[in-house]
């Protein structure tokens, strides 16, 4: 696979680190939760985010599998980065990822066969989830093991948050249940569309709308605060 590919397509934003600022372990871990959330901010890995979130259980299992693959391959990639020649970098990454995905798939099939059936091909499709290859390219391939794992954990949790958010909304409204437990009793009329494909698109669209709205609000407030500060400075 060619090198430019990763940059065109999967070069996930690791966010250039500002010079002169020490990067703490906390920052490595926490940035994936919101500021660089892979799904909500970077808009990566939307396929699984839409496809498997029709129930919380599916979302949890999918997030877990992805987390496992992400952390595992980040660890391995970071460990091996000095031994991997640049020419075969991406190929090796994919090989590592595919291995972990295969393991995860077999594990799920053995442990939770029902959910594995419900997730269908999407477990295998973690291989082409851009979050994972993106993290290897952007972070694990050029950072020490500890930081890489922290980064992967953070990103994994970020992905899980997004999936759980989608899964909760869709299951609660679409089936009236949470993790299969009925919330509103038998009189509730489920909004079936939420567990259907269009509902996936609409839910994610709403989530992104809300995120955009929140960021706009925050930006506006920051701008207002900046203005106030400038006024205060001038007054002083």
């Amino acid at each position, binding site marked *: *696979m*060619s090198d*430019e*590919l990763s940059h*065109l*397509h*999967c070069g996930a934003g690791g966010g250039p680190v500002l010079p002169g600022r020490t990067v703490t372990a906390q920052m490595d871990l926490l940035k994936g939760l919101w500021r660089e959330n892979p799904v909500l901010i970077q*808009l990566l890995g*939307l*396929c699984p985010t*839409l*496809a498997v979130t029709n129930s919380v259980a599916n979302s949890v299992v999918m997030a877990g599998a992805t987390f496992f693959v992400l952390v595992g391959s980040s660890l391995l990639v970071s460990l091996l980065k000095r031994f991997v020649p640049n020419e075969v970098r991406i*190929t090796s990454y*994919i*090989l590592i990822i*595919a*291995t972990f*995905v*295969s393991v995860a*798939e*077999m594990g799920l099939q053995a442990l939770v066969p029902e959910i594995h059936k419900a997730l269908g*091909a999407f477990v*295998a*499709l973690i*291989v*082409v*989830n*851009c979050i994972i*290859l993106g993290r290897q390219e952007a972070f694990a391939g050029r950072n020490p093991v500890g930081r890489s794992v922290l980064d992967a954990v953070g990103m994994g949790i970020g992905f899980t948050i997004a999936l759980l958010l989608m899964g909760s909304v869709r299951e609660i409204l679409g089936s009236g249940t949470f993790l299969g437990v009925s919330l509103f009793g038998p009189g509730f009329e489920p909004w079936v*569309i939420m567990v*259907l*494909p*269009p*509902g*996936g*698109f*609409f839910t*994610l*669209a*709403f989530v*992104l*709308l809300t995120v*955009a*709205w929140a960021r*706009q609000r925050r930006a506006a407030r920051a701008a207002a605060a900046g203005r106030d500060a400038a006024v205060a400075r001038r007054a002083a």
Partner: protein
Amino acid sequence: MGDLAWIFFSSMVVNNFTLMLFLGLCPFLGVSGRLDTALRMGAADMFVLTMTAVAVWFLNAYVLAHVPYLRLIAFIIVIASLVQIVEMVIKKLSPVLFRELGIYLPLITTNCAVLALAIFQTNRGYGLLEGLVFAVGSGAGLTLALLLMASIRESLDLADIPDVARGTALVLFVAGGLSLAFMGFAGLLSSS
């Protein structure tokens, strides 16, 4: 014959890869801004899908029966090399076409639609002919979705979209609408 027709229409509209199964969303969101790029992406997709169907049939029939645990790795490597080979062949044979397809070919490697096609084909036990029809149907479905989205996005360029909805959220709303519309095809050719 009826089965082949069903496979074709099912994969093209009833279970459209993009709108019903959320596969190939990356190009759907990424390169659907303009009609001509969408068309090229669709053509490239179709081509690689068909090639993959043949390769996967071959793998399943002769190789993977013995090493089932290598399935995923085999698929991804075959797809990646296939794209690379196709790229080189096209570059050699038709530089014009190569320029036209440009970056779209390598993009397809990590397009989940191709890997998904391989997995579905395997899980459903499709033979060569069925696999080919499935690939062509899926490719047509991907292209259809891309073209619809591209033409809609071009026209939305002129609309006064509210600020918060600009970008991916709007595309997803439109995709939701398309997905809703495509639900009308459910049960096509399976009612008799």
